[in-house]
């Protein structure tokens, strides 16, 4: 085990995979000499060669389209979208092509493609460097969507994504990059796609979250334990699609109370699916209505510090307070 932050865990895992298997290439804007805007691939163009670390033109649809072509012809491309906010021009290539090629060819063709996209806010990135995009893609059958929140999960899920025969959207919350550290196994470990993880055990209520919001939940849970003796179980979804409903429902059935927390705009967000699943499958186990906390329904996170803070936390300490209310309900 080595302690690392999330961005280092991603860098190390991707580096090792590339060193092991020359079918893997990294392509994206500024991944070459610049090493990516987050410096994940700094020095790799020299190490792996220009043919494997490919600076692309500024064109996301073409970038993903070209990567699909590579994946269709024996390579294992990792396409880096500089910021998740800039994935939208590639929406058609991802939805109509990557996600549908296996289905439409009746299983004849497959697209072993990983799309990495740094997402999420709270880093003073304003409207176009802060977005959450998981809800768009989790709804699309044919592509898997993962979003690790810890260094170990990031490394293990990235390796699993590269090994997966189907397209995987690998979401990296930028705020976890340096803020979150943790132990990562030295050896090549895979975290299975499609498995949620109980990050904190508890008995009074279940909190379901993912991404950076998970850490806010863990923090609130710790304080509630200390302040009020309330025991919160925190489930890290980790994979949005396919969603591990089993782990979520098991926990909710045990605690009888559930709160779902996510950073993205609340309405029609990924949390709606989780709440809906709990309501359909575990209603008679619930002692109180499910609580849902999502981001404000405004187009995206504003830049000015007071506005950004408001987006991240419209009421002070709202997760803590909603958990407390729920526990007492």
């Amino acid at each position, binding site marked *: 085990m080595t302690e690392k932050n999330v961005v280092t865990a991603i860098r190390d895992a991707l580096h090792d995979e590339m060193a092991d298997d020359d079918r893997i290439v990294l392509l994206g804007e500024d991944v070459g000499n610049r090493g990516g805007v987050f410096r994940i691939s700094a020095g790799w163009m020299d190490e792996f060669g220009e043919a494997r670390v490919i600076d692309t033109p500024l064109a996301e649809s073409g970038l993903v389209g070209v990567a699909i072509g590579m994946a269709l012809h024996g390579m294992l491309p990792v396409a880096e979208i500089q910021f998740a906010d800039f994935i939208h021009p590639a929406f058609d290539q991802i939805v*109509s092509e990557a996600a549908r090629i*296996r289905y*439409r060819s009746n299983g004849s063709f497959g697209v072993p493609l990983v799309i990495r996209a740094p997402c999420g806010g709270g880093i003073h990135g304003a409207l176009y460097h802060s977005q959450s995009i998981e809800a768009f893609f989790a709804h699309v059958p044919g592509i898997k969507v993962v979003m690790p929140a810890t260094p170990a999960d990031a490394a293990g899920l990235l390796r699993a994504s590269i090994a997966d025969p189907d397209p995987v959207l690998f979401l990296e919350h930028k705020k976890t990059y340096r803020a979150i550290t943790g132990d990562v196994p030295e050896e090549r470990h895979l975290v299975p796609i499609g498995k949620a993880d109980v990050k904190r055990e508890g008995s009074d209520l279940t909190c379901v979250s993912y991404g950076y919001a998970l850490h806010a939940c863990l923090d609130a849970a710790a304080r509630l334990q200390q302040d009020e003796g309330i025991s919160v179980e925190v489930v890290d979804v980790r994979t949005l699609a396919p969603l591990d409903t089993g782990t979520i429902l098991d926990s909710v059935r045990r605690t009888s109370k559930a709160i779902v927390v996510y950073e993205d705009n609340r309405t029609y967000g990924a949390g709606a699916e989780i709440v809906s699943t709990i309501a359909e499958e575990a209603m008679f186990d619930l002692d109180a209505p499910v609580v849902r906390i999502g981001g404000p329904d405004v187009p995206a996170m504003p830049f000015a510090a007071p506005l950004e803070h408001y987006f991240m936390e419209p009421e002070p300490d709202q997760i803590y307070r909603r958990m407390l209310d729920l526990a007492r309900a």
Partner: protein
Amino acid sequence: MSTQVASTPHGALGLSDDDLLSMYRTVITARLLDEAALRQNRMGRAPFVVPAEGHEACQVGTAWAMRRGVDVWLPYYRDGAVVLTAGMTPYEVFLGIFAKADDPSSGGRQMPSHWGHRELGIITGSSPIATQVPHAAGIAYAVRYRGEDAVVASWFGDGATSEGDWHEGLNFAGIHRLPVIFVCENNQYAISVPQSKQMAIENVADRAPGYGFPGVVVDGNDVLACYAAMKQAHERARAGDGPTLIECKTYRFLGHTSDDDDKTYRSRDEVEQARDRDPVHVFGEYLRANGVLDDVGAEELRAAVKGEIDEALSAAWEASDPEPASAMRHVFAEPGDPEGGSR
């Protein structure tokens, strides 16, 4: 014998009389297959068909320069004659038209003419226009990366050139000088939208210099001209000299698909005039004039092909439909599924 060959235009291109007869047979197969499919559509047995009529010369001419089993093909929906050249059989085409379980393109999941055939190196295509263009560039990148000798070709209509993906795909191919050929079958319409409302230029090929590689305009009704242009592009690609954009000027004789009524946007005069240069007749004339095939031979060939097509059609009609619940399969890989795609 080889001297005799070289004295004809096709001989000069390295094509023997037998080659020419095979090409012609493919052209005739495409035409008769279209007609048979359209009849099935009118009979209510085929809900949707996409005729290639008018495009046969440019499809067979360009496709003929590709190597079956070696090169990689990314056709679009109108490319019935391209996929026949690549090795698809009329039976396989009809399996698609009737949406049968054994349809090699999609097992009846996609509309007919959304080609795909892993064994033949025909990459699965979709409806959204021009999405295959960046795929072609990516495959060509992989071909070179893996040190293969293959050439990749992507076909598309004039309409496709307006899409952002077209621009992005050609640009990437140009930057990396990839072994890929872009073939535009310019029939002057994107469904009803005439070329003048699609672009302010006369030749799509004139965009190629903007991507750093040559663009060529050819008469799309002249099968040998199309072959010649493609052959040269193919050699360029294999030599490491990068992509070529070939624009074949042609015309679509029928509606856009069986759902279209082209009378709303084209005069009958215009269509009739285009038929004067029907590529099937032009090719037939060439064969007669060069003593490759006389009228009797042509009639015999036509009859033989017709027999084959009727047989293929009947057999395909009898084939099994997909199982309803199989609709749930192949969302993700199943154990034993092949990896990736063309190789």
